[in-house]
């Protein structure tokens, strides 16, 4: 009998958003979060704000925070790197506490990493001095809470790297 895959379900991420009082999800689709988008869009209490360029998400999140809301940013690692100066200027300099849920495209726990999107993700976060947790399955759900708590404690961005490209979200 085949063992059930150890996956990160969209419901787990959604539940964490609700638990932490998220009001707005700023997002651009990535290859790992299709089912999560569908789930989030079905919640009338959440406002989904789609952007055409991930760098815009940082400024939108800053405005939402200034207005008293609780945003989260949902993007892919490629978009995270595209957002570098916006993260610096808006989230870091203005001390905006926001969780970024980032699809870790190309991540491999075993074997060689062939996708440069993965190769540069963690060095990018380290260069920007952004703390992060790796989230691989439902067993890591508390790490998503940890990211929200880190953002509040540090008054800045904190990242959950969602390392579940081939199952779970894309079931």
């Amino acid at each position, binding site marked *: 009998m085949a063992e059930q895959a150890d996956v990160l379900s969209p419901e787990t991420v959604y539940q964490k958003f609700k638990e932490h009082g998220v009001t707005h999800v700023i997002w651009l689709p990535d290859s790992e979060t299709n089912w999560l988008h569908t789930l989030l869009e079905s919640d009338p209490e959440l406002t989904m704000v789609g952007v055409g360029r991930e760098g*815009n998400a940082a400024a939108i999140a800053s*405005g939402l925070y200034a207005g008293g809301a609780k945003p989260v940013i949902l993007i892919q690692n490629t978009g995270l790197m595209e957002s570098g100066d*916006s993260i610096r200027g808006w989230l870091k300099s203005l001390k905006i506490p926001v969780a970024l849920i980032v699809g870790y495209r190309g991540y491999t726990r075993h074997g060689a990493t062939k996708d440069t999107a993965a190769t540069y993700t963690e060095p990018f976060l380290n260069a920007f001095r952004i703390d992060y947790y790796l989230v691989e399955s439902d067993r890591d759900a508390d790490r998503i809470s940890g990211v929200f708590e880190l953002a509040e404690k540090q008054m800045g961005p904190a990242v959950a790297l969602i390392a579940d490209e081939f199952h779970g979200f894309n079931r």
Partner: protein
Amino acid sequence: MINTAEMFRMFLPHRGDAIVIPGRGGRHWVEITDNEKLDATLGDPAMGGHSGFGLGIALAQPNKKVYLFDSDGDIHMSMGMLTTIAEQAPKNLYHFMLDNEIYATTGGQPVPNAKVVDYAAIAKAAGYPKACSYTELKDLEKDLPDILNSDGPIFVHMKVLPEVQNEAIGTRKPWNPRARTKVITDVRGELTK
């Protein structure tokens, strides 16, 4: 061509209790404003972000009018934000744009195709229900009450006189009496009290 400081002085009596994001015009607005607590005088945290910040605060405070003063260089950098704003369609967002055709804070180099681009047409094509353009202050002054009494999002393009800064950044006199983090704290405190 419109003088930015004169435009802000004309605009002030119409401000009411709205949130104002003066963008790159902030150095004039800080001397004109009547309610600093609701001024998001952030200068330029990272270029291209004013429209996103304006959208965010408008979505968070749907019952409060938000007057955003964006710039041509910023619009060029984040033109896709026009579609995001149009999709969200916040009725409380009034998106003004200061178009001086140049990158004024870096010495006055031209913005791409600055003399040809029709920004109001772009905003309209992106989905703004209403967009207009002004080159003379008296025309804007005449229309402003109607603009501010209409539902947003509205895009209001203005051709403004360039005010070139050509000194090294480190030698410029700071115009904002508040640190940017204090601005965020003040605005958030005022809106959530």
